[in-house]
């Protein structure tokens, strides 16, 4: 069976949902093989194997101190050895750049934003800010495909899976590259990653500097916190929470939009959510055009009341 090479940049366990989705998807197209950006310890190997990986390529050294160039060189080298039927990556900005450069190195077409990959490697993706769906194919080289989170249901782990074969890839010259000179970690929230969350509660300028009600509801629903650019620009919440054209594109089961008008750039990031709930005190806000359930009301009464009701039902 042809193999499908999955690029994973996972420094530690547990395996994120997005990684499990990629392995599951690879398994529907061929035999999953992993190119791991970090050397895998035994626990990581076991986890990868239990999600279908039969082989794991690892770099012979650290890829971390330079930006994507080295990761792309590593992935291209692994692909040259493996000769897979396709290469799958996540859809983060960095993953897409690695895909971009790998595509040039291999002379292979690249498709981003995939939401489905058929066994014949036809790729379904959403385009024009989620307003169109298209089916694309790679015509030249090994298809390099970046897949959006929440596109497939990850298969359950198989703890009895055989240990994967390990292959070390020598580091090759990545060419001129930028160096990372400093890194400051942000606080870890314990909430799910925005890009892969099943539930997102997002707040906008209407939260007026107080994200408490948004965070409270998100935590009750086990969701992530999102925001409009107006809210992140105001500094009420970190920039990485921004949803939209220049933030994250998300496709959760449930998106609750609170105090967000629904400008085209915001819609671009969330209109493929399964269910959209909007709370806004302006009945003419554009967000209501795409809401499944809209509430014309004040976020500071609606959100806390909903949270209280959930607590009451669970008590």
């Amino acid at each position: 069976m042809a193999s499908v090479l999955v690029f994973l940049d996972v420094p530690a366990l547990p395996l994120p949902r997005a990684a499990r989705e990629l392995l599951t998807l690879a398994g529907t197209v061929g035999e999953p093989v992993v190119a791991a950006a970090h050397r895998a310890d035994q626990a990581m190997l076991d986890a990868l194997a239990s999600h279908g990986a039969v082989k794991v390529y690892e770099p012979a050294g650290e890829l971390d101190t330079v930006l994507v160039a080295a990761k792309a060189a590593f992935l291209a080298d692994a692909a040259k050895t493996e000769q897979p039927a396709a290469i799958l990556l996540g859809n983060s900005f960095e993953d897409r750049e690695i895909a971009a450069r790998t595509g040039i190195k291999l002379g292979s077409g690249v498709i981003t934003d995939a939401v489905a990959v058929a066994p014949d490697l036809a790729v379904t993706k959403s385009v024009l800010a989620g307003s169109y769906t298209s089916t694309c194919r790679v015509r030249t080289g090994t298809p390099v495909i970046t897949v959006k989170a929440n596109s497939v249901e990850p298969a359950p782990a198989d703890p009895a899976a055989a240990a994967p074969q390990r292959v070390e890839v020598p580091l090759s010259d990545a060419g001129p590259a930028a160096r990372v000179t400093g890194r400051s970690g942000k606080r870890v929230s314990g909430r799910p990653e925005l890009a892969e969350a099943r539930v997102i509660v997002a707040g906008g300028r209407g939260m007026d500097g107080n994200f408490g009600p948004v965070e409270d509801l998100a935590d009750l629903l086990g969701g992530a916190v999102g925001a409009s650019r107006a809210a992140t620009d105001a500094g009420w919440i970190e920039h990485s929470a921004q949803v939209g054209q220049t933030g994250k594109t998300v496709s959760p089961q449930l998106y609750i939009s609170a105090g967000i008008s629904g400008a085209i750039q915001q819609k671009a990031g969330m209109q493929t959510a399964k269910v959209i709930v909007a709370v806004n005190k302006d009945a003419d806000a554009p967000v209501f055009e795409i809401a499944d359930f809209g509430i014309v009301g004040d976020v500071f009464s609606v959100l806390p009341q909903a949270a209280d009701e959930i607590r009451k039902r669970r008590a």
Partner: protein
Amino acid sequence: MQESATRPLNIVVLVKHVPDAQFDRHLTGPGHTLDRAESILSELDEYALEAALQLAEARGGESAGNRVTALAMGPAAAVNAVKKSLQIGAYAGVHLADDALAGSDAAGTSLALAAAVRAVAESNGPVDLVITGMASTDGETSLVPAQLAERLQLAQVTFASELEVADVDGAPVVKARRDGDSFTETVEAPLPALVSVTDQANSPRYPNFKGIMAAKKKPVTVLTLADIGVDPAQVGHDGAWTAVAASAPRPPRSQGTIITDDGTAGVQLVEYLAAQKLI
């Protein structure tokens, strides 16, 4: 002679002519290409142009020998993106226009743009920085900046939310800040480099009357594929490494329920979520 510590920069800014996202956009024709009526300079490229102008101005601007060239690739109308860039403040413009480019994918686009940047370097001297927006607002793939860096073998600094060129031991070095999901990092690269900037990087300026008048006198060079030595078979629909087989507008979301809060909307919201099996 210029002091080597502040030598002028030769900057190329990529500017794309894209359909205005404020209107409905459509894919048309057998190649499922974008209907390009109602097009404008990509909003995200305005941040790239602003970044270039600020870097050049920090070194004395045009009179000190800095160059900021706006480069657009696309059909005849794409020259409007160059003209708008000149009005905003770019010092010169280049329009790569060739019918054979129609339908290019990221691979073909990056191939043609790489050759165009080399052509600018041939007539202008070595290019220090290629600056782009973080993504185009039509294709939205973010592939082109990284592919251009790969093709030109430039150090790549993408998604910069802050940018400066500092002189380290007499050589200009680009320093940038990038905001990741769980961390913020600072990165550094020697020139020449490719930089893409986010909408956090600056506040783009608007063209003023003076800029609009001055733009009329600024040069726009038109290049064809023959001028930059690119084989037409490598670009456009035929040269594309990817193809669109089908496309369809997403079915419009069916009209939802809208209620006005009568004091119980929070409870009704939870009832709705429960009915949808979302809690």
